[in-house]
């Protein structure tokens, strides 16, 4: 099935399908397990709960969707779970997380053959990288919370594809592997829209901050117009180098990436300046393990 109306556009009908796919999308195994554990204890520490929620892209998206809805009419759009805790209150946040957790858990194996576990580790690694890169190369220009959330959610479109249109997404993954194509190019060929477009469409629909939606939309170029988008691009490239690209293959086929000025045009030097990343990788892996 081709749900798209043309390159770079999504039909109204497909938009609705993608939106409802997210509504019914379960969260990740480890977060569900931790949330169920924590919420069995009446004395559970709010900060522990926030710590779990902000590491799960599905629950984070659903919370942000509610807090940024017109109902709350907040003057500034919200990108953090901490801020959601202040507004909604910890117990309401807890019960929201619990209600999202009872939908079930994202299966390790899906029909699209998309590795959910690897996606989660990649998103967490990228989130930590964007925050570290922002602090080092764009201090004062980007907000650390925005950096984290941009990294956590930038590839969200991939999970939506895997859940909502597994056959087509599977074809895109296969095409990307066989023809050595970046995944987003393969998605465009097979589905008619790539995961950046889908992620951004949903972010806009849910009234996430425009800066975040734009960042998701533009994270595979061609232009990176904001400091946040620049940091995300570089984090994505570094994550790919480190092996956490969630099947993105953004440099496949010898694609050259233009590095924004602030990074001196050299990815190796940027990585060296960033220092040891093993701790953030270990942390991401530790969180995402569903067993133990």
């Amino acid at each position: 099935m081709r749900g798209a109306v043309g390159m770079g556009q999504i039909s109204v009908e497909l938009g609705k399908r993608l939106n409802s796919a997210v509504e019914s999308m379960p969260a990740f195994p480890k977060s569900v397990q931790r949330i169920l554990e924590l919420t069995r204890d009446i004395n559970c520490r709010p900060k522990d709960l926030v710590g779990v929620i902000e590491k799960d892209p599905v629950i984070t998206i659903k919370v942000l969707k509610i807090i940024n809805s017109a109902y709350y009419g907040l003057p500034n759009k919200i990108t953090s779970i901490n801020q959601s805790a202040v507004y909604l209150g910890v117990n309401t946040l807890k019960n929201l997380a619990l209600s999202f957790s009872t939908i079930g858990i994202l299966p390790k194996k899906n029909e699209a053959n998309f590795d959910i576990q690897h996606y989660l580790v990649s998103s967490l690694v990228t989130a930590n990288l964007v925050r570290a890169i922002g602090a080092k190369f764009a201090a004062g220009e980007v907000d650390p919370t925005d950096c984290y959330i941009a990294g956590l959610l930038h590839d969200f479109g991939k999970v939506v594809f895997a859940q909502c249109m597994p056959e087509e997404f599977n074809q895109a993954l296969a095409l990307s592997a066989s023809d050595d194509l970046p995944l987003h190019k393969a998605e465009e060929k097979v589905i008619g829209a790539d995961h950046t477009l889908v992620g951004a469409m949903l972010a806009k629909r849910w009234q996430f901050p425009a800066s975040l939606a734009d960042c998701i939309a533009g994270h595979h170029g061609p232009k990176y117009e904001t400091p946040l988008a620049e940091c995300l691009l570089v984090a994505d490239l570094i994550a790919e180098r480190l092996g956490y690209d969630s099947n993105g293959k953004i440099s496949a086929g010898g694609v050259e990436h233009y590095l924004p000025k602030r990074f001196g045009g050299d990815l190796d030097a940027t990585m060296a300046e960033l220092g040891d990343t093993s701790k953030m990788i270990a942390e991401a892996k530790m969180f995402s393990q569903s067993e133990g």
Partner: protein
Amino acid sequence: MKFKFWGVRGSIPAPGPHTARYGGNTTCIEVRSDNGTLIILDGGTGIFALAQSLLRELPVSANIFITHSHWDHIHGLPFFIPLFIPGNTVRLHGAMDPVTGSGVEQVMAVQLQYSYFPVREAEMKAAIEYKSLAIGQSLEVGDVTVTSTLLNHPVIDFGYRIECNGKSLFFTGDHEPYYNIYDREDADYAEYQALIEEKQSSVDQAMRGVDALIVDSSYTREEYPAKKGWGHGYFDASIEMALRVGAKRLYCTHHEPTRGDEELEAVFATVMERHASRLGELQVHLAREGLEVDL
């Protein structure tokens, strides 16, 4: 504008000789505008006695504003007798619940189920209207303006500011002063602190300069640490709040169900002694069932 307390007890009704003077009914406050517009804040068990007093002035047009959906603020609603009498109008206002996605109609619907109450809403003869309010929404009701403010409780809780001809009152419903969920050594401490200060200042703004501030003051300062996170305030915090926002009178309410009249007065006297020197023009009172205040 004037108002009258019909219920001042928190959590559960606490009738009996030990609460005879302050009253055992749960939260309900009647507010009357200069033109007689009837506003009712919360439908705890206190609303039953209020309902009977209203039978003298049929037909009734009642504007009920629910602060939040916990039982002690809604469980008198099915016994609001004007609901059963044709010709009356009852408008129920309150927040939407983000967890269930339901509007304020939920607070009636859950109580009027077959297993829990013998009468269905369809059998109630008054015209019943539901209005879920947005956060910060101002509503004109007759000669009164009611504005909602999102406060801090384990369920969505609206504080309401009511204004009429230059007079104003604010009722918190249930509210716990904002506190940092992180420890000082945590990386997120400073960010969270900034967030709660920002929220606190917007809440203060909503209460600024009211003639009467009615505040959840469930606990003593000494009791509070063991109840942190339960969503209620304590006397000292209520006084701080009233001083901060420049309220003229403070009414401490939501009395603990286990606290008898004598203990309540003793606790209050200790608090007043502690703050006597800094109250200035601020008058501080214990809310009492039957207490009527003309602003």
